[in-house]
């Protein structure tokens, strides 16, 4: 019987394989659950590495998505940060402008028109500066142009809606100046090289032995009829004794190549300006500028600048 079966299987290999596999399949189906679980776990080992790989791939995709989202967020935040930086710079500028406008005065109030710089001098710093205010705004030729940091130059040409300013860097420019500490007077002029390039500024016509030291503040003297007295020009950087006069080098307070906002003098008002209204006062308090005013002094109205001496110009 066994030999017959063996011969039958040998002669019908396909059929015998089929019968064996079918019987095994049914046997598997009839196994008790614990044994099925054990066998399944053993068979699962063949697929498990790929399952882990798939899960790893899914995790990686998740990380990639998260990375992209974070990158996008970073770009957004960077843009916001840049915008905030711009806003901060603008606030700082406005703060400077307001500080300038509400600073105290002794004898009068400079009437000024705020103007934006629309074109700056080039590398040689001798060309003119263009501003966006002109005749229509009350700008006239020969008036001083200042920035919160100090003197910029004077108006040399006025059109209806814009004007041109000759900066202190121009070869022909000059300003009557005084050493604020000692009262020694002179004229600040640009120092120009052989190729007409700007080298710096000198304070000229100071007698030998005058009381000038490095670090002294240089302000306008008011002589000459252009610049009102007391406006900051710059600081003495070096003093050298000469046979007849001192060689004094001055660093301008204003950075001419970075100007954005200037004020053009339009006149002088001797009467005190109107008081600030509540909103302006609130704004100044918020900026921390109102507390800086001397006690008892009323804050001036915005748009009026200081005047620290009598009106007389110099060039």
């Amino acid at each position: 019987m066994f030999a017959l079966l063996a011969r039958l299987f040998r002669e019908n290999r396909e059929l015998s394989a089929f019968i064996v596999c079918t019987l095994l399949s049914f046997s598997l189906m009839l196994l008790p659950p614990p044994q099925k679980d054990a066998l399944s776990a053993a068979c699962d080992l063949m697929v498990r590495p790929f399952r882990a790989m798939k899960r790893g791939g899914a995790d990686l995709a998740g990380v990639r998505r998260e990375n992209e989202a974070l990158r996008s967020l970073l770009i957004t935040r960077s843009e916001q940060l840049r915008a905030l930086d711009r806003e901060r710079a603008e606030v700082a500028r406005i703060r400077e402008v307001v500080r300038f406008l509400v600073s105290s005065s002794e004898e009068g109030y400079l009437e000024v028109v705020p103007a934006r710089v629309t074109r700056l001098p080039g590398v040689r710093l001798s060309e003119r500066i263009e501003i966006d205010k002109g005749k229509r705004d009350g700008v006239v030729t020969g008036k001083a142009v200042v920035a919160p940091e100090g003197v910029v130059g004077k108006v040399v040409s006025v059109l209806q809606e814009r004007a041109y300013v000759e900066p202190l860097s121009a070869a022909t420019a000059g300003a009557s100046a005084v050493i604020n500490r000692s009262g020694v007077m002179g004229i600040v002029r640009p120092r120009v090289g052989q190729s007409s390039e700007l080298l710096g500024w000198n304070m000229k016509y100071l007698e030998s032995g005058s009381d000038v030291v490095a670090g002294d503040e240089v302000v306008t003297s008011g002589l000459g009829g252009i610049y009102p007295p007391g406006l900051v020009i710059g600081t003495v950087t070096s003093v050298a004794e000469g046979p007849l006069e001192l060689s004094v080098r001055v660093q301008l307070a204003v950075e001419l190549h970075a100007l954005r906002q200037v004020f053009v003098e339009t006149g002088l008002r001797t009467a005190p300006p109107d008081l600030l209204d509540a909103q302006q006062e609130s704004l100044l308090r918020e900026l921390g500028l109102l507390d800086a005013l001397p006690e008892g002094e009323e804050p001036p109205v915005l748009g009026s600048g200081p005047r620290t001496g009598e009106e007389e110009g110099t060039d």
Partner: protein
Amino acid sequence: MRPWVFALLAYAAVVLDAEYAHVFDIRGVRPDFLVLVLVYGGLYLGARVVTIAGFLMGLVSNSAFPEYLGLSSLGLTIVGFTTGGVWDHLVKANVFVQFGVLFVATLLRDFIYYVVYYRHQMDIFRNSFLPPSVLGAAYTAALGIVVFVLARVWGWRAIAGDSLR
């Protein structure tokens, strides 16, 4: 085709079917890579090899569902034996014949699986089997056409026959 190449393909088909079949999912219809490999394996290696291979492939592919262990083995054993034997009576290198064999083999495997799985709920069996299985069988058979085209390009004579010359 050498047996070890077939073994490799069978293993790849099991992994593909178990872990990556969703990649080929078209509106819930998936191809049956196990049947695809068995049918073309039978064409090269005969009924005995693919019958045993069907049993083993079913065993591994069923490992995720221990409750029905052996059910896939049974289905693939029958598919392997039937298709491995039927090639002797058919014109092998014909795309329509291959399409038909694949279609019927896939249906047969699904039929065996579902008829046991839903043996007490024949109404669910009808709903579960007919629409998805027929579409799945068509999808698998369509992949058979792709295999036929590749066979023509790469010169697999057992599948594409002499049509290359």
